[in-house]
């Protein structure tokens, strides 16, 4: 399912003394099957953009097209439920949304709201709980006796069980330990590959953005500043650093290396393998 934001502007608390412009002139297209990362400083408007993707926020001007449904500013919208089923959002700290007596009921909550039968929902719960790396025996436990990391996974399973065709992730790994982080990010990536699931990832981690996303979008002060592949975005690391953003560790290493040895590699390296090759080649060239 394609999503298209066109000239979107959003003001929080419009027409009050607290009015605040959050995003302006935002035009983004997310064709089906894209993995897009949204990076930017805190307060750059990433989360606001994200909430437009399933009509949780309606633009104060401009249009949002989700599949064949169009959401236009200043028009009353009805029946947004079908959009919400198709675009699943994993919010920051999703474990806060758990409320049911058992994990199974909580995972079934989403699909059953969209009219999926109880039996089918339970099947999905079983599949999803394994997908997020937990075991079936957890299904009958109360979500509140689990550890923080397990709760996070259960909440994610609850969104996956809705079987959305677009998955929107708002810093899904914030506050997790490094291993849990990698497991969850890998899981999302596999889903994206296997089911051709469009994925939109809001993140502060440049490593995640460069490793997983095929498109990166840089937001700054409520506007889209840049868009491109990881190579394109990180090939001008100085721009990003000026914006107060980080670059992946590998890129940082490359910059330092180039600086110390007064050299310049042919291209920007994004993985450890690439950089080791480059460094090895450089050292060999110097020896001979």
């Amino acid at each position: 399912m394609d999503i298209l934001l066109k000239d979107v502007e959003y003001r929080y608390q419009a027409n009050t003394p607290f009015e605040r412009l959050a995003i302006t002139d935002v035009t983004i297209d997310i064709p089906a099957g894209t993995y897009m990362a949204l990076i930017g400083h805190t307060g750059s408007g990433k989360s606001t953009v994200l909430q437009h993707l399933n009509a949780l926020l309606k633009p104060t001007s401009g249009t949002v097209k989700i599949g064949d449904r169009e959401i236009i500013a200043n028009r009353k919208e009805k029946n947004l439920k079908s959009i919400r089923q198709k675009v699943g959002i994993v919010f920051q700290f999703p474990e806060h949304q758990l409320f049911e007596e058992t994990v199974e009921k909580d995972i079934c909550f989403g699909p059953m709201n969209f009219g999926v039968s109880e039996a089918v929902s339970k099947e999905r719960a079983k599949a999803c709980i394994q997908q997020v790396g937990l075991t079936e025996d957890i299904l009958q436990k109360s979500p509140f006796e689990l550890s923080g990391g397990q709760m996070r996974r259960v909440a994610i399973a609850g969104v996956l069980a809705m079987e959305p065709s677009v998955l929107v992730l708002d810093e899904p790994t914030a506050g997790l330990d490094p291993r849990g982080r990698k497991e969850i990010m890998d899981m999302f990536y596999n889903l994206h590959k296997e089911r051709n699931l469009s994925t939109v990832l809001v993140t502060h981690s440049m490593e995640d953005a460069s490793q997983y996303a095929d498109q990166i979008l840089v937001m700054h002060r409520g506007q889209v500043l840049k868009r491109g592949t990881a190579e394109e975005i990180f090939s001008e690391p100085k721009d990003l650093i000026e914006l107060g953003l980080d670059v992946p560790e590998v890129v940082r290493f490359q910059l330092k290396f180039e600086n110390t040895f007064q050299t310049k590699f042919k291209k920007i390296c994004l993985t450890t393998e690439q950089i080791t090759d480059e460094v090895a080649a450089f050292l060999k060239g110097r020896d001979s």
Partner: protein
Amino acid sequence: MMEKMIFGRYVPAESVIHRMDPRSKLLIVFLFVCVVFIANNFWTYTLLAIYTFGMVGFSTISPRFLYAGLKPVLWLVIFTLILHVFFTKEGELILDLGLIKIYEEGLRQGIFISLRFFLLILMTSLLTLTTTPIEITDGLENLLNPLKKIKFPVHELALMMSISLRFIPTLMQETDKIMKAQIARGVEFSSGPIKERVQAVVPLLIPLFISSFKRAEELAIAMEARGYRGGEGRTKYRQLSWTSRDTVMIIVLALMSVLLFLLRD
């Protein structure tokens, strides 16, 4: 979703009202609440209304914003009006529609009581709109100080108040966040049959309760870790200062009360 709520909200500005001492503002609101009940005819209510709108004017808070924020309460005011108009059967009959009979006294009572209600709401909102929560509690603690003599826990009360006021916006944000998360999971809060809408409150309230308890515990631990041990011997960082402005404001209100007494039937 919760954006339009104005109760307990502070609008920063540099007006006369904003700069008043919280104690005088609290006293004025308290006195006003009593004085409102003196009014009982056209002139006294006009005087009250002029006073209240005068205060709103001095506060430099935009009337449009006030109106938008008080809209939900206006319904309650209108409801009071209707109740009185239809159910007070005194004085002359002015309208007879068979089943519905409107009497003179009913109309008079209805207008006066709903106006009284409205002015009260306006004055109390003005207090919270122009005074930071922390000022209000400081002022209250100071005003209630004499009660310490009879072992009334003034400091604890003030602390409880400031903590609850402090967490209103946090709770609002959290409500908004969880609401959005549940809407994304297919809950409908604002449409659909009543029964479903009532049920929709459960996935909202349970997470809110849980996080509130957790937060309370964390706050208690954080306070203890920083050596909090009650109000005994605690000094104040923010000092209150009573100026001539405050005295004048109190005198104005007192004068108005005298006038009200003279004008009432």
